[in-house]
């Protein structure tokens, strides 16, 4: 078991390397020049060239890559070209809003989606099932920002129930924090609820068709007991997988949601960095998100062994 875990962890290194090389090449082989952005409107060529030199952008790509990887290995994520702050401090600054948003969204999603999925599977082929499934398809057919605008228009501008935008750290004012988080979390959850409800339903239906469930039913065990004791436990595995792969979806939703609700999180940081060609920041952020994605999926893989007694390594 320990050997297996070690192997799996080591296997993530080449994947991270692929990400690093890909991002680096994408940034350096396409036209674009952070120096011109820093220099501004009235810059001359010589001024731009001087700034470029100071940033080390006139060195060969291989050298730049080696310098960057060397920095990473020394625990240094680099320094933002534009603001001069360290990327680590930028991330530390911008991570809390995103972590809170993602956490609240996840809790909201699981609280809503799993019961929806169970209900749909339990009432399979009834109007309940069809209604839940139709709603869930709708959930990922409408762009996130449209949902966000509709919620703002209705609940913030017309009804004044919630603030329009912004972020307050929970430590500063917990009530304000909660009020400002509710609409963005609902917006972001809309896609995610759809996905997880569908998956819960599908895997429950799979499990309900298994022999041991049929046996249990045949033995006359109460339907609710069958559902919760046998079926749901086994259905948890595919649902976990979706939570893992859905993480990517969550990130794309986060980028848009943060823009619509003006939440100063990592998603906006990345988009801003891309538009302003802040190479060190883009590199570090994409590497970091990829790393988290890999870690989440690894943890989920490993947790199978705990959830499913049939899987043994």
């Amino acid at each position, binding site marked *: 078991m320990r050997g297996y875990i070690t192997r799996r962890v080591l296997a993530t290194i*080449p994947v991270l390397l*692929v990400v690093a090389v890909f991002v680096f090449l*994408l940034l350096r082989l396409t036209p674009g020049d952070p120096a011109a952005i820093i220099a501004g409107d009235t810059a001359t060529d010589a001024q731009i060239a001087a700034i470029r030199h100071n940033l080390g952008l006139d060195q060969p790509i291989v050298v730049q890559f080696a310098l960057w990887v060397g920095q990473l290995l020394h625990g240094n994520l680099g320094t933002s070209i534009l603001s001069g702050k360290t990327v680590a401090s930028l991330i530390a600054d911008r991570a809390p809003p995103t972590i809170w948003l993602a956490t609240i969204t996840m809790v909201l999603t699981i609280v809503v989606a799993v019961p929806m999925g169970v209900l749909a599977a339990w009432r399979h082929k009834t109007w309940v099932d069809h209604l839940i499934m139709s709603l869930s*398809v709708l959930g990922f057919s409408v762009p996130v920002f*449209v949902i966000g605008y509709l919620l703002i228009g209705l609940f913030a501008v017309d009804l004044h129930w919630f603030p329009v935008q912004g972020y307050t750290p929970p430590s500063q004012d917990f009530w304000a924090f909660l009020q400002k988080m509710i609409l963005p979390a609902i917006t972001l959850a809309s896609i995610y609820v759809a996905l997880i409800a569908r998956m819960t339903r599908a895997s429950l239906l799979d499990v309900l068709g298994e022999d041991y469930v049929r046996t249990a039913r045949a033995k006359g065990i109460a339907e609710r007991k069958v559902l919760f004791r046998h079926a749901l436990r086994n259905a948890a595995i595919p649902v976990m997988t979706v939570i893992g792969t859905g993480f990517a979806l969550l990130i794309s939703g986060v980028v848009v949601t943060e823009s619509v609700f003006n939440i100063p999180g990592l998603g906006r940081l990345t988009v801003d960095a891309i*538009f302003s060609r802040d190479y060190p920041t883009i590199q570090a952020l*994409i590497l970091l998100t990829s790393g988290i994605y890999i870690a989440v999926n690894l943890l989920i893989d490993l947790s199978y062994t705990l959830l499913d007694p049939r899987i043994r390594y």
Partner: protein
Amino acid sequence: MASETTPIRARLRLPTHLLRPGGGGFGMVPMIASVVLALIVLAALFAPFITLHDPVQMSPAQRLKPPSAGFPLGTDAYGRDLMARVIYGARVSLIIGIGASICSVVIGLAIGLVSGFFRYADAVVMRIMDGLMAMPSVLLAIAIVSLVGPSIWTVMFAITIPEIPRVVRLVRSIVLAARDEPYVEAAIAAGTSLPRILWRHLMPNTFAPLSVQATYVCASAILTEAILSFLGAGVSTETPTWGNIMAEGRMYFLIKPELIFWPGLALSLCILSINLIGDAARDILDPRMARRKE
């Protein structure tokens, strides 16, 4: 209580059998979805014949006008006909959706076949695919579009890249399962040429799951295009897409919500239809799903 719920159930039972997804063959819902999608495709194909104006012709004097006989859905901030833009927008959005799904399926199929069949290529290819998959797709797409420069083709390319690994994994898993089948082993033993094995024996297995996958890629590509436009990394508004009409129109949400509503409705209907058709196709093609129908 029971007596109160009964009539509601009864009333709701009426459309229930119509809503049944793939209950017996192709159900009502996928049927409606197909009709909607067909209408959208037809509108896109015959856009020049069913619109009253050129979608890019600006007339500053006609800015932000309410619907009228001349402009059935009103005009946008440049005095362009919103209806013409939404209809022409279908073209580009569909091209991007279909283009991205064809490209990702074709490229993914090729890589997946090779990866599944040749063990020595597999390790390397799959690490690269894992890497691509680990990168957040929307961020990757924004980066590609912003760095390379936006056009329909870059947007399509940027949406395709992150989809490829999913197709590769799917194809690879099918090939891995199939290559141990007796008929494939027999073909190898009989000295059948490699391309022939791949082409004749392995590839057909992938068609059903790939066509399902393609519909989902198509839907997600259209949605991603809208998100890219929203974030400022989309196609120029000289070429209307549902995404960039909404992105441009969102500034006027308070005074003219139609600019988001109509393209948003078209986009949502289109994606909804594609997803429902994909669901139905999966139900029909996936034998495991067939069992659930019992």
